[in-house]
């Protein structure tokens, strides 16, 4: 297998060095799933730095009470842009990027089912992100503030109506979400079609890598959730431009209608984002425990179960809007129920670790931290599912801490883990483990400083989205600690970006299979050729490379 890796320190040049314009033309016009995947990832990383910088400014403003670092208008724009950017232009594209890159490789295909749709989806999503940020130049917001949207990432009606949001910032927000939604649906359709119909010979659904299974569930979820979001954006635009009154409360419209539309998207969206993190964990934890994943059928069932149950929990975001006792009770039950399949996943991961030989690579360390943090996030989630508890803590910093535990503690940690794991496949070079460990520990310290302590001001009564607070409330020390953690995270992230750039040019050559792994993407060169596989592989079990490496005890023996 090592025959592909050259002895010299440089990768084989397949063609003479090309002009910049030629390279650019190649990337802009490409329909190759790997290049599109990388563009998704690169684009998301740029926005990750932008959104992170916004978070940093927010934390500077809140570090001390009655701060005047930024004006209230700018602060409101910052948290709106931070939330919108991180969900729609970091989370979604980065996860689609990995999916795009990995799914064809893992199921033994040469590309996605619809390569041109793939390129279209990427470019329309990318355009959405640029449009959102163009609002800084092209729109003027609430109170003549000028610039970016300032209605919050969930943009509750009627604050988005023209009576309360003058200028065009809300229109930029709506259009950006609408476009990114179209791209998202396109890519999801593509993933479903690819997973259903492009698998290599022998890869039955029951032999598919769990990553492909989970992306299938996630894409199905996208169809059901992005559609109402898109519909709501169109209704919002109609309200703003042709005088309809869906959400215009001053003309009899309904504010609650928007909430339902938004959260029937918004809560499954959390699972759209976290399912791929589970998918990464399902690939990475077994390889670094040197064991097959425990309970494959249960893992599939739990993923599908999460997909379905997540569609019935949305109104737990609305416990405070004055629902009937019956309504509240229903959403308490559905929300608590979702903890059962997620619990199964956590237990199965623990059982995968149990009896293994755990290798503490940077990738695995991020994955173990993910397990720990996701456990905590799940438990605070159960607390918040208890409606009377939520009446107290909804809309407070406790919620902010809870969902950042999911979004950062689980999803971002797992994305970092995925980078350390698959970067060698994508670039042909290993990331520096030494810098990786620094990145891990700094980010871990920063994460816990910020988000552990963020729970407490929420319990003490600090609501979210306030640009400042009074000195006599006793929230200052806690906010100071929270803000100091942000600095650690920022430094760690810069270290990570530096690691990627450095390793891309100077990292050790990876070879096709640096982790001694078992899925098909490791059977081809790093980076893979345009056509992925010279010969389309045939598989006989869930771990084709294990079968090749252990001919005396192949998985296919146990595959019924």
């Amino acid at each position: 297998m090592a025959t592909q890796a050259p002895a010299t320190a440089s990768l084989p040049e397949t063609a003479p060095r090309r002009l910049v314009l030629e390279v650019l033309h190649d990337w802009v016009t490409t329909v190759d799933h790997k290049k599109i995947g990388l563009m998704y990832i690169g684009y998301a990383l740029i926005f990750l730095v932008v959104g992170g910088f916004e978070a940093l400014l927010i934390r500077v403003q809140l570090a001390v009470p009655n701060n005047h670092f930024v004006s209230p208008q700018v602060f409101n724009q910052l948290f709106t842009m931070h939330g919108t950017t991180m969900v729609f232009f970091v989370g979604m594209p980065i996860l689609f990027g990995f999916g795009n890159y990995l799914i064809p490789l893992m199921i033994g295909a040469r590309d996605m089912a619809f390569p041109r749709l793939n390129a279209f989806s990427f470019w329309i999503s990318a355009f959405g992100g640029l449009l959102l940020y163009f609002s800084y130049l092209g729109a003027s917001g609430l109170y003549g503030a000028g610039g970016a949207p300032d209605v919050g990432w969930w943009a509750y009606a009627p604050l988005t109506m023209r009576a309360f949001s003058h200028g065009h910032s809300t229109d930029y927000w709506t259009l950006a979400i609408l476009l990114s939604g179209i791209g998202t649906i396109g890519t999801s359709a593509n993933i479903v079609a690819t997973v259903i119909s492009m698998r290599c010979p022998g890869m039955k659904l029951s032999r598919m890598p769990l990553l492909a299974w989970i992306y299938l569930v996630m894409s199905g979820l996208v169809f059901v959730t992005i559609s109402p979001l898109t519909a709501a954006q169109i209704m919002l635009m109609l309200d703003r431009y042709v005088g309809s009154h869906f959400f215009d409360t001053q003309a009899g419209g309904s504010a609650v209608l928007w909430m339902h539309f938004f959260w029937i998207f918004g809560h499954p969206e959390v699972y759209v984002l976290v399912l791929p993190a589970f998918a990464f964990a399902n690939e990475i934890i077994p390889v670094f425990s040197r064991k097959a994943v425990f309970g494959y059928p249960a893992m599939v069932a739990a993923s599908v179960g999460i997909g379905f149950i997540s569609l019935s929990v949305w109104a737990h975001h609305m416990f405070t809007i004055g629902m009937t006792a019956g309504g509240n009770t229903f959403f308490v039950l559905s929300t608590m129920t979702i903890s059962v399949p997620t619990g199964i996943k956590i237990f199965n991961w623990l059982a995968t670790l149990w009896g293994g030989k755990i290798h503490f690579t940077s990738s695995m360390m991020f994955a173990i931290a993910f397990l720990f943090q996701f456990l905590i996030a799940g438990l605070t989630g159960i607390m918040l599912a208890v409606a009377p508890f939520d009446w107290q803590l909804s809309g407070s910093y406790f919620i902010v801490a809870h969902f950042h535990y999911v979004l950062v503690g689980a999803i971002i940690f797992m994305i970092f883990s995925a980078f350390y794991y698959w970067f060698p496949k994508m670039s042909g070079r290993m990331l520096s483990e030494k810098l990786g460990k620094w990145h891990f520990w700094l980010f871990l310290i920063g994460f816990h400083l910020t988000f552990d302590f963020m729970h407490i001001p929420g319990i003490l009564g600090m609501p979210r989205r306030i640009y400042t607070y009074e000195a006599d409330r006793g929230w200052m020390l806690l906010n100071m600690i929270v803000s100091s953690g942000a600095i650690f995270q920022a430094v760690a992230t810069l270290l990570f970006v530096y690691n990627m750039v450095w390793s891309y040019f100077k990292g050790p050559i990876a070879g096709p299979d640096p982790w001694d792994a078992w899925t098909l993407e490791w059977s081809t060169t790093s980076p893979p050729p345009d056509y992925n596989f010279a010969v389309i592989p045939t598989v006989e079990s869930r771990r084709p490379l294990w079968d090749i490496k252990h001919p005396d005890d192949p998985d296919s023996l146990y595959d019924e």
Partner: protein
Amino acid sequence: MLVLSVTAGIFLVVGGLLLYVVIRYRHRAGDANAHQEPPQIYGSTQIELSWTVIPILIVVMLFLATTRVILSTQNAPKPADSLDVTVIGHQFWWEYRYPKLGIVAANELHIPVSDPKHPTPTYLSMSSADTDHSFWIPRLAGKTDLIPNRVNTMWIDPQAPGLYLGQCAQYCGTQHAKMLLRVYADTPEQFAAWVAHQQQPAVEDPSASKGRDVFQHNACISCHTVAGTVATGRFGPDLTHLASRDTIASGAVPNSAANVRAFVDNPANFKPGALMPAMHLSQKDLDAVTAYLMTLK
């Protein structure tokens, strides 16, 4: 409490297991069989069934306990001695109306303290004049949203007299952060005195007649009410008893002549983004209006 102990228990058990597994099964380079793969285990129906059923039982238990609290809160019978207050959220202040007492107040809510033996809870029926708001006094109750075109209700039942702080908990626009809540739980005597005072029309202090003229000949009266005068605007807070309040600008700053003057001069001095425009009064008129407002005890 039940929820806390259950979740803390799960955390200790599962977190402990994770720690144990990570330490016990770490790869040791020195081991004799360091290069051998560990035994491959694919699953176990019994074990997996057990960690499906146990969580289901925990969920059922938590759900039943939660339902009991929801029903006891939302379907609680309303005692005859309860006080009714209508709360209306505005960008960025609170309006309180006591329909049975004929009182309109702003930003500082006075309610009677409730004796457990003879409870006098306060029932709030809440709506919004513009965007969504949320009424949250952490030490008194959970929050309830104020949503336009919709009336929500909640009740509070403070057992100890004193001042309870809170603030708007649903993002409502630029000055969401300074839409503060102050609830005064008064003793029965204090409350009766407060009610009697608030029911009076505005004090007519002849020494402030110049300021009253300025007030009544400017746009002030389009938005503010001073009971017993021509000022009947309803867009901004009722000012009939402004000087009896401890704070102005929805709790943003203490109520003093200097602060009132600065706020009237330009509200952005304390609340940039507040809907009241800068009044552009001359220094003389500013002084007069401030003097007038401070007589509105």
